């Protein structure tokens, strides 16, 4: 058991934290949000330069072969800065699927371009009716003479409006919600029949509704063996949840610091409000929630390498339950402790609150994960070891 970072990991942590500290203060973030894509292309280039965009990929694809810990380090820093860029969509989800399920040709064509910052991806998987069931895919792909024809609707695709390519899930067989029969395809966002409607989200990010009408693909556009995509989808979803857990911990840390600082400086009735015991205790409860969340983000990261997908999923669900509960508590209480200023758009703390809120409906809400964990028997076996 060892909680220390390696020398390389410490360097990564320092460099990404410095970048965010220097280039991602609240005013800069507002500027970035006003760019056409809703995030900073310049920052994206910076991430590429720092090697963040190729982090999880093998060296031959321009990456550095980083694992879960490296992703955690980056996401935690991003969480502090409430960054807007499509790192999760492009690197973790999109790139993750290509690396996991793609052919050598697909990897070679796509991963280096992610790593150098020239290609943005989005994972067009969720559908309006699916809620949080990863196997609920009604979009269809049917065989055509020289490939596939896709038909369907994708909903709330994170950064789907700015992506150059979409990884689209579609059903080639079976019923809605069947585990088998799901395929993944690499679809050019500009392809005929792809309609995108982009919009801002409550937390300042971007998403898109995507309609796929008679979209024609080549056989070589399939990612992995058609019909057997669900395990890959589950695996990248688990990685995304671990990444979001780390992002949440970064955001909680910042929210905690901002709130404690506010308690020290804000005066009422002639004294700093941080001298009021009830508010002190609330701040301590925020710290407790933060430390518990930090522990579970570590747990999620470690368990990504677990060989048994059921054990991995249990750990990720457990971590997600803790992250969501801590995030909700910290977000709501940080706003409450700030009083009026916490409610304003011009002040940073409310944006953390909104980000925690948006996380709650990303890849399964708290109840979804608690139910999944409970169904799987929980974390403690009833029978003694």
């Amino acid at each position: 058991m060892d909680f220390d970072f390696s020398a390389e990991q410490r360097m990564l942590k320092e460099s990404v934290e410095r970048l965010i500290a220097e280039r991602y203060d609240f005013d800069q973030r507002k500027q970035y949000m006003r760019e056409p894509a809703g995030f900073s292309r310049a920052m994206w280039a910076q991430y590429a330069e720092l090697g963040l965009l190729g982090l999880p990929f093998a060296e031959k694809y321009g990456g550095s072969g980083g694992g879960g810990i490296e992703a955690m380090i980056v996401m935690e820093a991003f969480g502090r800065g409430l960054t807007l860029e499509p790192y999760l969509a492009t690197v973790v989800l999109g790139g993750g699927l290509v690396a996991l399920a793609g052919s050598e040709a697909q990897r070679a064509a796509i991963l280096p371009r992610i790593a150098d910052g020239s290609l943005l991806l989005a994972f067009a998987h969720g559908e309006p009716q699916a809620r949080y069931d990863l196997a609920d895919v009604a979009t269809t792909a049917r065989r055509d003479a020289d490939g596939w024809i896709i038909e369907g609707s994708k909903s709330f695709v994170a950064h789907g409006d700015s992506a150059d390519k979409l990884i689209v899930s579609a059903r080639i067989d079976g019923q809605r919600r069947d585990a088998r029969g799901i395929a993944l395809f690499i679809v050019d966002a500009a392809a005929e029949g792809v309609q995108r409607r982009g919009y801002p989200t409550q937390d300042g990010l971007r998403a898109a509704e995507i309609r796929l009408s008679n979209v024609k693909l080549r056989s070589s556009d399939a990612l992995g063996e058609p019909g057997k995509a669900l395990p890959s989808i589950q695996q990248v979803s688990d990685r995304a949840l671990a990444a979001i857990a780390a992002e949440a911990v970064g955001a909680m840390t910042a929210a905690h610091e901002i709130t404690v600082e506010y308690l020290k400086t804000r005066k009422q009735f002639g004294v700093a409000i941080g001298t009021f015991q009830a508010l002190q205790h609330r701040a301590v409860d925020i710290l407790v929630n933060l430390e518990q969340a930090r522990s579970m983000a570590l747990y999620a990261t470690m368990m990504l390498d677990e060989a048994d997908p059921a054990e991995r999923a249990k750990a990720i669900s457990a971590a997600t339950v803790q992250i969501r509960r801590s995030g909700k508590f910290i977000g709501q209480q940080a706003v409450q402790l700030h009083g009026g200023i916490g409610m304003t758009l011009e002040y940073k703390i409310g944006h953390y609150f909104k980000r925690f809120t948006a996380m709650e409906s990303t890849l399964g809400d708290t109840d979804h994960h608690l139910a999944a964990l409970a169904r799987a028997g929980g974390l403690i076996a009833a029978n003694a070891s």
Partner: protein
Amino acid sequence: MDLRFTPEELAFRDEVRAFFREAQPASIRRKMELGQRLSRDDIVTWQRILNARGWAVPHWPLEWGGTDWSPVQNYIFKEEMQLAPAPDPLGFNVSMVGPVIIAFGTEAQKRRFLPKLANLDYWFCQGFSEPGAGSDLASLRTSARLDGDHYVVNGQKIWTSRAHLADWMFCLVRTDAGAKLQRGISYLLIDMKTAGLTVRPIPTIDGEHHFNEVFFDDVRVPAENLIGEENKGWTYAKYLLGNERTGIARVGASKYRIQRAKQLAATVMVGDRALADTERFREKVAAIEVELKALEITQMRVVSNARNLPPAVQDPASSVLKIKGTELQQAATEILMEVAGAHAMALQSEHLWGTASDAPVGPEWSATVAPDYFYTRAASIYGGSNEIQRNVVAKRILGL
């Protein structure tokens, strides 16, 4: 003892309910049902409909357009309004400045203002909070200096709700800088169009414009707009604070939200079941319903006991109303968030206002759910945060 309504009360409820059903414009009702924001016109229109019926200011004295309803009738009226759902009459007018003018204003002030308050010809906003004061109201610093027959006002107010829509402001100003905290404060009515008065928006985290900063730069206010005596404004403000006992819990509004959440959850599928049919969701909602029912009865107890208590004595049960009421308002918005799931996360301001021409992302109702959740966080902050409420209850009711 009988918690049930009497036949007369039931008949009254039916009358109110029928009136709301018939008199409320369909466009306003639809916005209320969808949780959409109302325009200034919507609010004015509705209050004038109420006023025409004689129901805009039911708790005022008969001579000023009020009714002789019992506390129970007033309670029924408010509940039915929130359940209709119909918008409340503008609280600043009817529950705040109106009662103060009735209690402390001159006959001339009454004749000048009260009819216009009831009919929403004048839209009032409240100028109490200041930067650096927050829940510590008495530390306010905006000054008013008498210069001939005018006060000259300088300073700044903040968190001024809907100041950008208002014609007038009732305002606390410091008229004696030497006096300590509560003393030396006066209560002024200020025309928002007066020269030197500037309103600047404070956008909130729901992306909307509820609040403002208001700046006073040598704003000249006729001395006849002073309410009561100079330097006694704090007394009038406190009278106002005690004046609003029920209704603050907004039980009807929370009930309406829960009702909506149950309806909508029946349309959201979780696997092959509707969300509304899962044990987990039903029990979570039932737990809130229990607390709401308890609060509803607590509120009725406060209403009913009010006549047995001397005016200065606060019913211990009344302390529950703000604290638990805001907690339940927030819980109800959280349930709606859970029902909407990711659909709530699209930011669609035009659909929030009902002014969009295109179809919304997700179901039509989902555009309002997140802004509602975000904005309702303010319920436990404004009007004396729940922490301040607990301080007050600990001191006044528990004697700690």
